[in-house]
């Protein structure tokens, strides 16, 4: 939808959604740095966090550009209220333990890669360009997280139980990624973004194969939990934002 003043709301929403998913998940995983189960994993998870923060800068930078009100990526990240965030509920779910963290990562990556791959064909060249760069990183994230989900699902009794518990808790949040709303439909009709039903198909295929290899089963008939794309979040987001935005907000206008 392009308003009279030239503001392209659909494109703005698309960029915000991509950026907020990367930002909130990046914030979550970077909290592990220094606390991961083993040094090699500490380093690997920080790489994922770094990629996501880098992608955030690109997407939110684009969103600010489309909006045309002079808001920078930092302004959008640090000075927006929770109802204005557009990430899916999955990424704001707390770290809980390393099983939840890895499962959340996998369930996100399995959507992120096909989504970015499709966005490489976007009619908007700035979107295609960011997708091109991010897809390479997402491919590695997916390779890593699916490998770990398989290994830990089919590992020890305890690792299996923990991964299954994480899957039970997080699976209901996956539907939101692939359930199209008005913004998704408008984006698809203009060739800005993909038809989400095609992404859904890929998503279901890849997760089914990985979960089978991991000897895990997704809960049947779990109700889909959604709302984040429209700014209706879980209670967790407020706490995350309080921590993340606190310094900026307590020194209005200061440069860092």
């Amino acid at each position, binding site marked *: 939808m392009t308003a009279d003043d030239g503001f392209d709301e659909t494109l703005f929403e698309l960029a915000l959604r991509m950026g907020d998913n990367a930002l909130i998940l990046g914030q979550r995983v970077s909290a592990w740095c220094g606390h991961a189960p*083993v*040094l*090699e994993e500490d*380093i*690997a998870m920080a*790489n994922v966090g770094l990629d996501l923060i880098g992608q955030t800068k690109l997407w939110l930078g684009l969103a600010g550009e489309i909006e045309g009100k002079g808001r920078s990526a930092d302004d959008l990240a640090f000075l927006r209220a929770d109802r204005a965030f557009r990430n899916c509920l999955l990424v704001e779910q707390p770290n809980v333990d390393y099983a939840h963290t890895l499962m959340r990562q996998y369930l996100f990556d399995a959507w992120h890669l096909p989504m970015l791959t499709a966005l490489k064909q976007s009619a908007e060249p700035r979107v295609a360009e960011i997708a091109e760069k991010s897809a*390479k990183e997402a491919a*590695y994230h997916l*390779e*890593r997280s699916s*490998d770990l989900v398989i*290994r830990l699902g089919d590992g020890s009794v305890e690792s299996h139980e923990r991964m299954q518990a994480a899957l039970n808790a997080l699976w209901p949040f996956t539907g939101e990624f692939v359930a199209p709303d008005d913004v998704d439909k408008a984006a698809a009709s203009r060739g800005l973004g993909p038809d989400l039903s095609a992404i859904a198909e890929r998503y279901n295929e890849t997760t089914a194969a990985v979960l089978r290899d991991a000897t895990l089963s997704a809960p049947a008939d779990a109700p889909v939990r959604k709302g984040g794309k429209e700014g209706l979040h879980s209670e967790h987001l407020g706490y995350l934002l309080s921590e993340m935005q606190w310094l900026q907000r307590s020194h209005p206008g200061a440069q860092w």
Partner: protein
Amino acid sequence: MSREWPLWEVFIRGQHGLSHRHVGSLHAPDAEMAINNARDVYTRRNEGVSIWVVKADDITASSPGDKEPLFEPSNSKVYRHPTFFDIPDEVGQM
């Protein structure tokens, strides 16, 4: 209960076609994970590099007592070293 992840030696060949070079070590439960970890730890994921991993236990090293017999023969073939040949400066880079 806890068994320590084995130690792996990591060798990397960069983009410029030089031989694999030992860059360091790390711990991993098996070879595939050692490769993944090496990508994260030692290349920070540079693309276009080739990684070898070898279990540290599987490496046979020359023992110090053997040093002389093993290295003596090549030390006597000093002509294998470029500095053996005195090239006049006027010839330029060689």
